């Protein structure tokens, strides 16, 4: 039964091919809504790929963001760009619907049929020239040029593959170094130790970048007025059920991050998704809470991290060098503050404008 050993390889192969195909179709799809849905599917498959590559923390973050905030953000952005986007793909009458059932549902496609008949339908290069994507300029490059570029790209791709193939020895990386110093780091999981202790500076700057992104979004426009009269009872019930559970799971992820995959960023993503769900279910932040409490929650992560990083200088340590024995409480404080901040920032990014 030697073929049983090939099963994991087959799984990886299917995942890799699906990933490539999804990425290509998401970029080349003429219909923006379809591209968004393909992108969401791409996020899910990418999460599975991270799992197969043994990077569970990244898989957690990818799935929490891809299934949560990113999907909602893209759909909301699409709604602003094309208010009638979902209408255009639908048949307007029963007759068109019946026709769609039998044949090709994408009705404006006669040109593709006749080009397929003449044998010049682009195989590798995808979709039609007739359904123009929104915002694209008229006139694409001729078929011959595109085939030439594809042929020219094949040797570099093969060369790259050969180079990567030669690298197929387990590279030591920094695993040994981290394992040697793990006891002093305050946590027992190497990824968290690297993120919040050994390379804490990078994490601090990442939090700052997230905050800057929000400031950029806020500088563009005030928050849109989405006044829904009443959410459906099913959605209201679901949000009442899920939002507290999401908070609980976020707290769990922060806590477990010290021993197993988890951590502040993943927990913050789940909190952000909770904010998105609440927003979509019609909850509104009271006007008093959008003043300084909201701003405090937003800057808390960077503030606590920077404060601790600078305060240890007064104790004779380098920047962000936790004193001996203080690493665990410092990391816990930073992670809690960062989780709150990341969740609030992501939810505010979804809402999309200053309050």
């Amino acid at each position, binding site marked *: 039964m030697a073929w049983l050993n090939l099963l994991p390889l087959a799984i990886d192969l299917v995942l890799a091919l699906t990933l490539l195909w999804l990425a290509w179709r998401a970029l080349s799809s003429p219909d923006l809504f379809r591209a968004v849905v393909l992108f969401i599917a791409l996020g899910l498959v990418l999460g599975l790929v991270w799992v197969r590559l043994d990077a569970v923390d990244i898989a957690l973050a990818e799935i929490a963001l891809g299934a949560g905030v990113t999907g909602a953000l893209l759909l909301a952005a699409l709604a602003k760009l094309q208010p009638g986007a979902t*209408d255009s793909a*639908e048949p307007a009458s*029963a007759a068109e*619907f019946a026709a769609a*059932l039998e044949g090709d549902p994408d009705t404006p496609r006669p040109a593709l049929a006749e080009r397929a008949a003449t044998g010049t339908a682009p195989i590798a290069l995808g979709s039609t020239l007739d359904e123009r994507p929104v915002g694209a300029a008229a006139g694409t490059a001729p078929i011959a040029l595109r085939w030439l570029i594809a042929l020219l790209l094949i040797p570099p791709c093969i060369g790259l593959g050969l180079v990567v193939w030669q690298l197929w020895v387990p590279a030591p990386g920094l695993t040994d170094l981290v394992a040697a110093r793990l006891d002093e780091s305050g946590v027992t999981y190497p990824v968290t130790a690297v993120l919040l202790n050994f390379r804490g500076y990078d994490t601090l700057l990442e939090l700052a970048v997230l905050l800057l992104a929000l400031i950029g979004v806020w500088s563009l426009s005030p928050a849109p007025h989405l006044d829904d009269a009443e959410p*459906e009872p*099913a*959605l209201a*019930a*679901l949000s009442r*059920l*899920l939002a507290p*559970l999401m908070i609980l799971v976020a707290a769990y992820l922060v806590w477990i991050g010290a021993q197993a995959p988890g951590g502040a960023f993943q927990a913050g993503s789940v909190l952000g998704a909770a904010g998105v769900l609440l927003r979509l279910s019609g909850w509104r932040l009271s006007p008093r809470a959008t003043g300084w409490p909201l701003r405090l929650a937003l800057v808390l992560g960077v503030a606590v991290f920077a404060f601790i990083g600078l305060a240890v200088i007064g104790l004779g340590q380098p920047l962000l060098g936790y004193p001996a024995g203080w690493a665990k409480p410092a990391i816990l404080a930073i992670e809690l503050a960062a989780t709150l901040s990341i969740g609030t920032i992501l939810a505010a990014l979804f809402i999309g404008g200053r309050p």
Partner: protein
Amino acid sequence: MLVSLSILLLLAGAVFFLAGTLGLLRFPDVYTRLHALTKADNLGLGLIVLGLMLQADSLAAAGKLLFIWLLLLAASATAGQLVASWAQGKGIKPWRG
């Protein structure tokens, strides 16, 4: 004994997933596809979770698996209702005949 029961449940779950996907691909309109989808969510995942629960290391792990299934049940039920009411609001007629 437990192992063979677990294997049976896992295979049954996979069959329901296949049924759900086939329904999604072959059924004639949104409402019927929704119906097929929820079968995959409820029964497919439910049987797989049940099969895995029998193999779980501890009660806590089994409880976590059950929790995952219940969450997905709630989510897919609400998603089904939302999509169906959206489709009805758009005037999509159910398939007749």
